């Protein structure tokens, strides 16, 4: 039965992959002709009658027979640049061009490139597909009558969001800039943090329709080559319609396609990205997404916060434990409470049991249902608070807290202890952001299981989750490392955050070819001379 199922699944997989290869068109490139009108005709056909495509025809010589056309997409080019450095030189140098044509007609296009236009990046091409794709990217194309070549000028310029403060990952002491939607800005932000010549941005385009630029970022010699190769392979396999956000990429390249836990991290902070790259990870930047993906992403990273490295080591370690505790509480607390109430009332200290039993009197629903009801209400409130326009969010929380909390208790629908438990759970669930989503799922699962089998069921599910996690890998790296498989040196940055001078090697689980991060004996010491002086005096 097993085999049957998997066979069917595999056959289906093969079939679907065949379909994909068939749909892919295999056209030979089309080249430009010398006829300007013909070329424009083709371009008009391809680019359609879109209102934002501007085809500006002009005469560029005092001889009326030399026509030219400038093609660009309105809104994607820098208008100042276009007017000042492209249109103006072309149309004001009529005499110059005329003189040139008289002398040597064939290299008119080179002449324009070298002597007329005053812009930086110009390339020439004959491939009409390339012209189209570049124009769509925001380049400006110049076509000249009688020339089967076109000039592509990089005069991109559009409205963008500036670099703003981080919104999701709040920074207290660290840098406050965050990525924007523009790939180039983002690479600049990274380049400014790491000036190593080996920092590499390797770009490629993904998306049949969206043609999104994607850059894999890594430092040669620190990120293992095998990792880069693996990422490239996975990226190349993607055959998607569009990539609207980095999360699209994430879902396509994860190790386990139906993973419960995130195996690829994301951040909006350049400093975090830089730190991860320096640890030996790779990052992926996607044009149009203000989030960088980092990989491999290990379980322990969920509990590491960039601020840990800017704060005092002892405090950072304490906070890590608080996060761990919060995570555990957020998953187990409702389940434990339910199983204690329904299965193991002997576990309550006697006075607590008496008051809990007092609160339980006269409640209509079994305790599991009560817990599930409150959990669902919490999820509803959270979602409503997130999606509501900000001005309404306040109202939601008031309604939620007062009406649902207070009124449900006084109406005798839910016990007060349950409200306390769910509230504590809800707060704890916000401590570990990367696992907040999966936490909500596990919480529900644990509560349901607890309702059926008490603590025994919970521990069975827990064992299953643990074994699932132990089997999970993120780009080949075991998800639970450095704890399992155990790596003693790697533990410096897990449950405790060692001082920066002590973290002299990169995380061992990442297999970086260059393990040495800094020289090992940098413990700050009291200058000896001063103390000697003090002794002498």
């Amino acid at each position, binding site marked *: 039965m097993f085999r049957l199922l998997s066979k069917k699944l595999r056959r289906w997989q093969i079939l679907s992959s065949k379909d994909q290869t068939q749909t892919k068109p295999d056209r030979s490139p089309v080249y430009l002709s010398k006829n300007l009108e013909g070329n424009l005709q083709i371009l008009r056909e391809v680019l359609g009658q879109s209102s934002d495509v501007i085809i500006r025809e002009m005469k560029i010589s005092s001889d009326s027979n030399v026509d030219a056309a400038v093609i660009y997409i309105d809104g994607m080019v820098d208008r100042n640049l276009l007017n000042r450095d492209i249109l103006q030189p072309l149309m004001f140098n009529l005499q110059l061009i005329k003189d040139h044509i008289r002398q040597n007609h064939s290299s008119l296009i080179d002449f324009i490139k070298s002597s007329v236009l005053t812009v930086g990046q110009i390339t020439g091409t004959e491939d009409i597909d390339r012209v189209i794709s570049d124009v769509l990217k925001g380049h400006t194309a110049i076509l000249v009558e009688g020339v089967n070549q076109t000039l592509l000028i990089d005069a991109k310029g559009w409205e963008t969001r500036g670099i703003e403060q981080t919104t999701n990952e709040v920074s207290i002491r660290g840098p406050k800039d965050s990525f924007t939607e523009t790939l180039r800005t983002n690479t600049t932000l990274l380049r400014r943090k790491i000036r190593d010549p080996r920092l590499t941005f390797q770009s490629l385009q993904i998306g049949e329709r969206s043609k999104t630029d994607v850059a894999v970022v890594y430092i040669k010699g620190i990120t293992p080559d095998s990792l880069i190769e693996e990422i490239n392979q996975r990226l190349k396999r993607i055959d998607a319609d569009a990539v609207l956000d980095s999360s699209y990429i994430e879902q396509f390249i994860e190790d386990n396609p139906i993973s419960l836990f995130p195996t690829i991290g994301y951040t909006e902070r350049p400093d975090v990205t830089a730190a991860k790259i320096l640890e030996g990870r790779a990052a992926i930047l996607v044009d149009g997404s203000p989030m960088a993906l980092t990989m491999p992403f290990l379980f322990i990273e969920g509990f590491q916060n960039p601020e840990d490295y800017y704060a005092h080591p002892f405090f950072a370690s304490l906070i890590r434990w608080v996060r761990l505790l919060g995570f555990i509480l957020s998953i187990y607390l409702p389940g434990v409470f339910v199983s204690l109430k329904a299965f193991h009332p002997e576990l309550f200290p006697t006075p607590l049991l008496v008051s809990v039993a007092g609160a339980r009197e006269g409640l209509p629903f079994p305790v599991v249902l009560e817990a599930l009801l409150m959990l669902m209400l919490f999820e509803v409130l959270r979602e409503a608070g997130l999606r509501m326009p900000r001005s309404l969010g306040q109202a939601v929380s008031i309604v939620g807290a007062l009406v649902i909390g207070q009124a449900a208790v006084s109406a005798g629908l839910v016990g007060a202890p349950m409200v306390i438990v769910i509230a504590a759970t809800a707060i704890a669930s916000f401590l570990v952001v990367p696992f907040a989503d999966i936490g909500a799922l596990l919480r529900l699962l644990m509560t349901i299981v607890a309702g059926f089998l*008490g603590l*025994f069921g919970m521990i069975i599910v827990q*064992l299953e989750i*643990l074994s699932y996690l132990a089997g999970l890998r993120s780009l080949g790296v075991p998800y639970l490392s450095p704890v*399992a498989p155990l790596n003693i040196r790697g533990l410096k940055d897990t449950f405790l955050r060692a001082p920066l001078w002590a973290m002299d090697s990169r995380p061992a689980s990442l297999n970086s070819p260059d393990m040495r991060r800094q020289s090992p004996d940098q413990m700050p010491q009291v200058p000896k001379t001063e103390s000697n002086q003090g002794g002498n005096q």
Partner: protein
Amino acid sequence: MFLEQGKISNLQLSVLITGFVLGSSVIIPPGQGAGHDAWIAVALGLMEGLLIAWIFTALARQFEYKTIIEINSLVYGKILGKCISVLFIWYLFHLGALVLDNYARFFKLEIYPNTPKTVLFLLLMLVCASTVGRGIEVLARCSVILVPLTILLIPVDTLLLIPHIDLNDLMPILDVPSEKLLWASQGAASFPFAETVAFLMVLAFIDKPEKGPSAVSRGLLIAGFFLIMAVARNAAVLGPMAVITNYPSYLMAQVIDIGDILTRFEVVVGITLITMGFIKISILFYGTVLGLAQVFNLSSYRPIILPVGILMVILALTNVGNTLELFEFAYKSYPIYAVPFQIGIPLVTLIVAKLRRLPQTGGDQV
């Protein structure tokens, strides 16, 4: 070797062995026949267990860490070798069913009196099956997290019980007749220490073979230390009750009471002990399915996990009628029943291999 690509480190092997040994022995402490001298019986049993471990690691080393199934085929030839392998696999399978039964009975008696045992069996079995399906590597990784956490319970319990400990209960030392003590220590050796013979299926996958024997004995010693601590503490806290109660560790957890606050968590203790059982059952289960796959030349052991698991559950359901029978088997018959598997097969195989000078040919065939 193609059945399992994973490798486990020697540390993981030690931890696995520790978890395996403490497996069901934390709920049914060994050496009860010796009364309050049980800890001496356990210590003697540990010695014997180390000796047996030495035998089977020597055997594994002789054959450059193949599994016992492959070794048997090399030593005794195809047919006889496979017969002996099947016997060995039966032992693993039966022991797995016993451990499963142990745990299910414990939970049914103490915590879930109305829940059908089948449900407890199936749930335990499923979680073990899914882990075994993920391979020995995953099991080893789980053990590295689970075993230290649950082992901590023993010293923590002991600390919390200090107000109740009466060392007089351990006196006089060597109170039982020596034949009784020896019998109890043979019992302690056969359950749980020498049961590590099951690792003949796992030793093949360690990454530093030259340090295999020390990893095995380290695991045994750590487990032995904590087991002796637990057994001695049981006797010191419960006095004569330690001998007549079925699950002294559980009764003892009920006694814990620090200022009316740290109290009443015996269910937590009991349920946490499941993790050790999980490791023990998984190892035995893994040995069984891997062994079967090797005997029958299957290309993967995964398809037979569920059938074998269900068979194990059926055996566990039917093999004893009540807890008394289980205890009688564990304390009276098992110390003899286990000898051929724990000592017989490894020792005879080792001797035959030495006589036939098999290491050289074995080395060539690799």
